[in-house]
């Protein structure tokens, strides 16, 4: 049968007994020429308002598939809703049976989900409400972690020391290359900026103070923190999230092994131990990077630069930087593990959890860094 154009594929004719006959012609294939849509079928009932009986003629119908059934289903349902009698005998047997099958299970009204309200205001409100629940949940999570630590102190935690060593290696030793590179370059950048400005006042040597203080007090901890958030925080969220999806966490729980002790505790301890070490190392590399720039661009020698640096930093500055690193370590581990444990049940959810972990960690790092700097300044530390 040749392809019928859209107009003669579907035709309707009303006879004097108010019987509306739908004439179907040609091939009705989703992949073929375009055929009338669901709307075209529904329009027929409006075109012939007085219809009493709906009948079909499929004498000239060729091959057909869902494209025909979609229209027929809509039409017969609409007809029945208007108390029009449907006489389906004129349809191919297969089509009759499939239409029947589509009605075998009634539409579950409660299964339909109402889409959440969209729009700028709605999503703003939604985000605000979510922020509150996240904050309470994060607090609860922190509390559970504290209890888990207390169990560890009393020797009652279900904890594998080998895991701790593994995470120390992963978060500490393996992060050295990237931390070295970034810290060195941050030192170089600081020195470049400093040399340009300070040289104007003939105070070029003070670039050593600038680099040393900035690195030791602030930049080393922050840069290491941001690297670790992307490296370890994301890894924690992905590891724990995937375990959640595969019911592996449930398996731990039913075997009497609290996920808090077994999964969260070693990761947190490893990161809290490694962050200050990495941060000190980053500070050192930053100072070396800055020093090389100063030596190249200024008229100073190594001894002068080292002397200037040593006078610039004191123990307070170093301890202040270390404290920050410890806090950042805790914040990163907490974000990663919390987002992993809060992960939903799909592959998509693991990706979301990982993103959320990094965003949350960086946000918290910046907020706590500012808070600590303000506190240090106020108390003159």
């Amino acid at each position, binding site marked *: 049968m040749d392809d019928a154009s859209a107009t003669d594929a579907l035709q309707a004719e009303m006879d004097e007994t108010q019987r509306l006959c739908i004439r179907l012609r040609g091939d009705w294939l989703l992949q073929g020429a375009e055929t009338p849509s669901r709307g075209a079928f529904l329009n027929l009932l409006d075109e012939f308002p007085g219809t009493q009986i709906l009948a079909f003629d499929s004498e000239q119908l060729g091959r057909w598939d869902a494209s025909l059934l979609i229209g027929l289903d809509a039409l017969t349902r609409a007809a029945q809703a208007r108390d029009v009698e449907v006489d389906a005998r004129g349809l191919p047997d297969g089509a009759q049976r499939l239409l*029947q099958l589509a009605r075998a299970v009634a539409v579950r009204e409660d299964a339909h989900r109402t889409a959440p309200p969209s729009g700028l205001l709605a999503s703003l409100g939604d985000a605000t409400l979510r922020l509150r629940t996240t904050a309470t949940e994060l607090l609860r999570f922190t509390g559970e972690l504290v209890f888990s630590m207390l169990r560890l102190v009393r020797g009652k935690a279900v904890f594998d020391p080998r895991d701790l060593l593994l995470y120390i290696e992963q978060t500490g030793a393996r992060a050295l290359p990237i931390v070295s590179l970034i810290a060195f370059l941050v030192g170089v950048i600081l020195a470049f900026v400093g040399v340009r400005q300070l040289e104007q006042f003939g105070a070029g040597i003070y670039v050593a103070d600038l680099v040393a203080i900035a690195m030791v007090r602030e930049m080393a901890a922050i840069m290491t923190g941001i690297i670790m958030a992307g490296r370890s925080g994301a890894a924690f969220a992905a590891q724990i999230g995937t375990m959640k999806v595969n019911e*592996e966490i449930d398996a731990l729980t039913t075997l009497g092994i609290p996920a808090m002790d077994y999964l969260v505790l070693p990761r947190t301890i490893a990161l809290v131990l490694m962050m200050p070490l990495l941060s000190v190392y980053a500070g050192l590399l930053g100072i070396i990077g800055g020093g090389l720039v100063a030596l190249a661009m200024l008229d100073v020698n190594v001894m002068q630069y080292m002397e200037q640096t040593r006078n610039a930093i004191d123990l307070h500055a170093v301890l202040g930087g270390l404290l920050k690193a410890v806090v950042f370590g805790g914040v990163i581990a907490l974000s990663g593990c919390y987002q992993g444990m809060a992960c939903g049940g799909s592959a998509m959810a693991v990706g979301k959890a990982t993103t959320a972990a990094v965003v949350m960690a960086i946000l918290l790092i910046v907020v706590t860094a500012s808070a600590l700097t303000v506190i240090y300044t106020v108390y003159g530390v």
Partner: protein
Amino acid sequence: MSEREKLIEVRDLTIAYGDFVVQRDLEFSIDRGEVFIIMGPSGCGKSSLMKAMIGLLQPASGDVWYGGEPFWSCDEESRRGLARHMGVLFQSGALWSSMTLAENVSLPLRQRTALSAARIAEVCAWNLALVGLSGFEDYYPNELSGGMRKRAGLARAMAMDPEILFFDEPSAGLDPVSARLLDELILELRDSLGTTIVVVTHELASIFAIGNTAVFLDTEARTQLAVGAPKEMRDHTEHETVRRFLRREAPRREAVIDGAGA
């Protein structure tokens, strides 16, 4: 096993996710040493009931009693104590994917018992042999087929010698022969070790082959419709839903369009 001892009692249990009640007013008991089936159509809340029984989902009301002790209304420490007598085989096996089979099976032993490393290795090898996985100690879960993963999960669940074993859809995703072998293994565990076994399933062949007692949960009524021996339920139940389910009958289609469905 002449005297029947009630090991597990589910009393007035309601399971809900937030406001959405999945099942309510569940009330049944499980005898020591029997195979108990939780059955019902897909999505009726079978797995949720199991989660409530093993401590993964807090019920909205009611409680599960193990040997006369309430599970949910006691403190976390004693709950963990009760859970120590349970083993669970999850639907997908839920093996820890970053560990080898041997590490999977021995982790609970290493963490929860004071056994020596050599002893743990023996127990681990024995359990793997029991499920037909000898020699796979150093394989990772992703290197195994679905059926093997499930059996490895069973080896892990059995490692602690639990009094009660829970199975979530044991035959899902298995070929008929493997499913049959798993059924036989379940019966073997009951007969030789006296383990009480709770199985969540909708496989009719399994239900009739291994079930001593069963509870039928319904999606529409959101509660249990019948408790009893599966075969008796099939032949004598007054509930049409239960009969249809157990006889594998489709609901009769009503003619919605003239000329069809005759």
